[in-house]
């Protein structure tokens, strides 16, 4: 064997190597794998045949490790002795002569020099490797096997490995029977990762961005452009901009494995935190921070890479500022804090190690805080064909007879879940059976059923089984006809009966529309009604034993509505939408309710208006009509007396009910006045207002709104001063005769007045309340139970004190406002002007 042939194949791979980082990434990209793909590259090249044998068995996981230490160790040993003898410290020259002659003369600090195809010299730096010296004699085992025998062995192993790429030539020898296959065949290195290469490379690229920060190496010129977007030149530690990586994808595809492999490949020590660990904010402080700050775990020289597995299950994500996720994110922000006050935060060191988070559901609520700060990568399901291929290899290794169709069925049922597939296969193997399709079918009953969506279940209910689905489920004609078990199990597996019922309700009307007879719908409604009664009985009485019966009530829709070529069931959110609207409207009613409570001659006088259903049935429709009279849009100064009276009355009512007109800009840019609370929804059906209510125009509403504001100002003045004359003045201008009013006012005294003013929102009401307190101070009030009434002190005493002061300071002042009816009119003699 010549070394010429050795150079390209064994060592350098298909492409020339420029420098170590490039070399590593090159390894990722290349198809042919490199034997000892590692950031600490080559310790030595011991022997041509040996190094050549490595690439062939590189797909191999566990066995590959076995032969490699041998030559390495032996060469190291050889090196020790020979260097002792010769004292040679020069670079190792990789040419045929030196390779064969002085193959062991390597200094740990010396870099390797190699020649590429172009004749360029390449230096490969090396890391010191601590080796446990072998006790056996150094030279002995190197030469006891003749080269031709080694070559023979090599060719044999090469052929066997082409037959079964993941070659475990003799499965019987392995003592690993008690191991889970999932662990046994877990990929150990980057090249063994299955499927989705783009994702793997993306993750690797992200990890590589940390190299500068963690290993202190400058990034490669060639890759610089690509990294620019995530490279943060501001960062003094040369960290990438997004300091977290979030990988999401369905279970069983190998996300965890991927991260572990990449961590190892990139030269990190992976530290994993998963759902089995306590994950609280405290644990971030106690465990995560020390690990990240120390940079490496005890007894290891490698830097640490934190893997947070199953992060979507972490508690306290959402709004809780002390949650685990929140804390984790805050780790990445420590630096700016530190800059602000160096002294206080001295113990907080910046995050200098990569963190990879793994989750199943990217949109999980707990991840809301994390998502903006993380680089997100979606892990999708690899093509079935790759998984099948891998499964077939494993089956071959395990001596399990498996036909491809059976395996592809398995993969299909498992929806790409490799872990699930392997577990199933191992289970079959443990019973010493051959893998057939039927067996797979039996073994995978119940597997992954939770992934079905409500729409899929509904489609199953409403449509007869398609040919494809029949084949997929491998059921006979007999079984096809028997739908009850199949469907009830499907409904049960979804475990969301109300949802299915809603779907049935939304869709049953679409089936069999051509029939003149409606009895079919009648029956369907009967079932739905029964479902509703049973399920509400279940929730009301907490009798969840009834739950078992619910699926059967929905299954009955299958014989009723099954129709070939019927309309497909689509997601129907009408019910939900209406519920949301209803909630909004209930809130509007509630605020109207509060307004009414506070209005009236005295507190609670209007409560008979809001009892039961009176509010929405009688009050809401009429109040809308009351507050929208026919008014001409003119200046408030020049309107007719009759209209002025109308306006005054209108203002009075709206103010007392706490209705306001709020100015807003509509979507088209026009200013509009909106009623607040928007009680006009109760006269708006199908998006149209009732025809008998005049559409109040902007000008009119503007007029009313100004008047309301003016009236509020007046009330405020009254409330502050509690002076009666001013109040009388406003009262005198009211629509009705003033007598009745004043009689009322006299009768009730000042106390009631302040109470009715309490309807004003905001700080004003607080003020009046405190006043009320002062007013009745001489006679301590008792409540119904005879206890002294303590007024809930919304404002602290200091505030009320301030208000007392305000009362003292303020004199009676009148503010004249141009064109505003709130101004006080006063008879003035001409003489006063002269």
């Amino acid at each position: 064997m010549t070394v010429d042939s050795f150079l390209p194949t064994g060592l350098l791979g298909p492409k020339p190597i420029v420098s170590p980082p490039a070399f590593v990434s090159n390894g990722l990209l290349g198809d042919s794998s490199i034997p000892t793909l590692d950031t600490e590259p080559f310790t030595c090249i011991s022997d041509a045949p040996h190094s050549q044998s490595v690439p062939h068995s590189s797909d191999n996981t566990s066995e590959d490790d076995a032969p490699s230490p041998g030559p390495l160790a032996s060469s190291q040993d050889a090196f020790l002795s020979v260097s002792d003898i010769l004292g040679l410290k020069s670079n190792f020259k990789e040419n045929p002569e030196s390779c064969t002659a002085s193959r062991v003369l390597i200094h740990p600090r010396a870099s390797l020099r190699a020649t590429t195809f172009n004749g360029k010299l390449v230096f490969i730096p090396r890391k010191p490797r601590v080796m446990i010296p072998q006790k056996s004699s150094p030279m002995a085992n190197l030469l006891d096997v003749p080269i031709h025998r080694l070559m023979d062995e090599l060719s044999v192993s090469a052929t066997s490995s082409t037959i079964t790429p993941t070659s475990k030539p003799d499965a019987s020898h392995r003592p690993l029977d008690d191991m889970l296959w999932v662990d046994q065949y877990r990929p150990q290195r980057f090249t063994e990762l299955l499927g989705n290469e783009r994702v793997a490379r993306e993750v690797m690229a992200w990890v590589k961005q940390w190299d500068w920060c963690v290993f202190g190496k400058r990034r490669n010129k060639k890759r610089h452009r690509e990294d620019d977007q995530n490279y943060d030149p501001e960062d003094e530690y040369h960290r990438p901009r997004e300091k977290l990586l979030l990988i999401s994808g369905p279970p069983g595809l190998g996300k965890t494995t991927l991260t572990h492999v990449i961590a190892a490949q990139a030269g990190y020590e992976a530290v994993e935190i998963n759902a089995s660990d306590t994950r609280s904010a405290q644990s971030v402080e106690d465990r995560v921070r020390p690990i990240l700050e120390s940079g490496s775990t005890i007894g290891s020289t490698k830097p640490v890479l934190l893997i947070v597995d199953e992060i979507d299950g972490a508690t306290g994500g959402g709004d809780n500022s002390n949650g685990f996720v929140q804390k984790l994110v805050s780790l990445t922000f420590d630096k700016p804090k530190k800059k602000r006050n160096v002294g206080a935060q001295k113990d907080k060191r910046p995050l200098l190690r990569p963190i990879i988070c793994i989750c199943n559901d990217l949109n999980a609520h707990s991840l809301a805080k994390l998502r903006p700060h993380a680089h997100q990568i979606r892990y999708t399901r690899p093509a079935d064909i790759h998984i099948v291929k891998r499964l077939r290899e494993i089956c071959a290794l395990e001596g399990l007879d498996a036909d491809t169709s059976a395996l592809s069925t398995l993969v299909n049922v498992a929806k790409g879940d490799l872990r699930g597939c392997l577990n199933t296969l191992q289970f079959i193997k443990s019973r010493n059976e051959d893998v057939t399709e039927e067996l797979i079918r039996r073994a995978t009953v119940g597997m992954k059923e939770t992934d079905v969506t409500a729409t899929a279940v509904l489609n199953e209910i409403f449509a007869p089984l398609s040919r494809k689905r029949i084949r997929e489920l491998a059921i006979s004609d007999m079984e096809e006809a028997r739908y009850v078990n199949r469907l009830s199990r499907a409904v049960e597996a979804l475990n969301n009966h109300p949802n299915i019922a809603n779907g049935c309700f939304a869709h049953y009307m679409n089936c069999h529309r051509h029939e003149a007879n409606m009895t079919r719908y009648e029956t369907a409604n009967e079932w739905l009604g029964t479902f509703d009664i049973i399920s509400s009985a279940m929730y009301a009485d907490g009798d969840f034993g009834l739950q078992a019966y619910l699926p059967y009530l929905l299954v009955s829709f299958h014989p009723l509505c099954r129709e070939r070529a019927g309309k497909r069931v689509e997601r129907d959110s009408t019910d939900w939408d209406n519920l949301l609207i209803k909630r909004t409207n209930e809130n509007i009613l509630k605020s109207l309710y509060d307004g009414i409570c506070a209005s009236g001659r005295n507190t609670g006088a209007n409560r008979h208006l809001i009892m039961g259903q009176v509010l929405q049935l009688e009050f809401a429709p009429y109040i809308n009509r009351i507050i929208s009279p026919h008014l001409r849009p003119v200046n408030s100064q020049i309107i007719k007396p009759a209209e002025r009276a109308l306006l005054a009355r209108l203002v009075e009512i709206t103010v007392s009910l706490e209705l306001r007109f709020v100015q807003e800009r509509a979507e088209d840019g026009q200013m509009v006045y909106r009623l607040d609370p928007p009680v006009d929804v109760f006269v708006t059906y199908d998006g149209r207002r009732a025809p008998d209510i005049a559409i109040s125009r902007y000008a009119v509403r503007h007029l009313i709104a100004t008047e309301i504001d003016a009236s509020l100002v007046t009330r405020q003045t009254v409330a502050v001063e509690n002076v009666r004359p001013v109040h009388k003045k406003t009262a005198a201008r009211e629509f009705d005769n003033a007598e009745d009013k004043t009689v009322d006012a006299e009768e009730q005294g000042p106390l009631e007045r302040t109470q009715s003013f309490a309807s004003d929102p905001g700080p004003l009401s607080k003020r009046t309340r405190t006043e009320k307190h002062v007013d009745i101070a001489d006679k301590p009030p008792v409540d119904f139970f005879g206890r002294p009434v303590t007024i809930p002190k919304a404002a602290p005493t200091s505030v009320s004190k301030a208000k007392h002061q305000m009362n003292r300071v303020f004199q009676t002042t009148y503010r004249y406002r141009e064109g505003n009816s709130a101004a006080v009119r006063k008879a003035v003699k001409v003489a006063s002007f002269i």
Partner: protein
Amino acid sequence: MSLWVDRFRPKTLDELHYHQSLSTRLKALASSGDFPHILFYGPSGAGKKTRISCTLRQLFGSGVEKLKIDQRVFVSPSRRKIEINVVQSNYHIEITPSEAGNFDRVIIQELIKEIAQTQQVDVSAKQRFKVVVINEADTLSRDAQAALRRTMEKYMSNLRIILCANSTSRLIAPIKSRCLLIRVAAPSTEEMQTVLEHVAKKLKFDLPPEASCQIAEDAAGNMRKALLVFETLKMQSPDLSGPLNIAKPDWETYCHKIADLIVQEQSPERVMQVRAKFYELLSHCIPPTIILKTVADRVVERVDEALKADVMHWAAFYELRMRMGNKKIYHLEAWVVKIMCLYKHFTYNIDMSEFD
């Protein structure tokens, strides 16, 4: 100051305009010193609440009008918090247990016992007892009513209970037997007209008799509604002359539209249209039983004599189911489908079951 409904609400028994005999009787009861538990019942808007507050004033004087609204929080056995509004004066307390839904029993047990076990503290009070007014008593659950019956007897010395209900049919017999039943009938058209005229006189404007007659007839015995309508009309057209256009509440108009849709055509498409309209009504917080009742009333008007009984029968049937169930829309639609079926069978006059 406030709406007419509030402003012209009588405050004393003497001010009441109709059911004079009832007023004298209540006055006698209040002054006799032997005041019983009372159950007021009658249709909505007849004046039950007004009479209750007048009676209270007669009993305790104007002090009952000094009201205070509190929010009390109770904890149900299942650790759920229930908030209800409590209106109280020194002498009485007013609650609406139906605010608590299924947990009204807790309120009856805790609140009423708490009141019952303390005596009247105010020595100057006219009466030795306090009064608890329970609104919407007919919506009390069985448990709550059972909790009430013993309390009513045991704490008679400290406590009188005034119940206010639309009908007595949902109250259990033991409660009814412990109360003095007072029916407040809806006012007749003439009685309502006098009230409307009284209001007009107070406000010093002329109310044409035909207008008041029309308003009174439209309100159909609901005084509150009549006053609201009256005020609405006054706002819309201040002189109240000419033909009045009395607006129906919008939900009612909408329900009538639904009824028309049902009668016009019976098809799956129509059912879907009706469903959308039902959703619209429900989302406007209109109670489903009211919807069913209004639509059914209208449908009965429009269908043939032979079908009327059936329509009502099924409406009652599905209303019961609706009360038992949670998803009101299912039962509303079930009724619609049922009616459509009946209607089809009737109009084609053939039994289509053989086509199945």
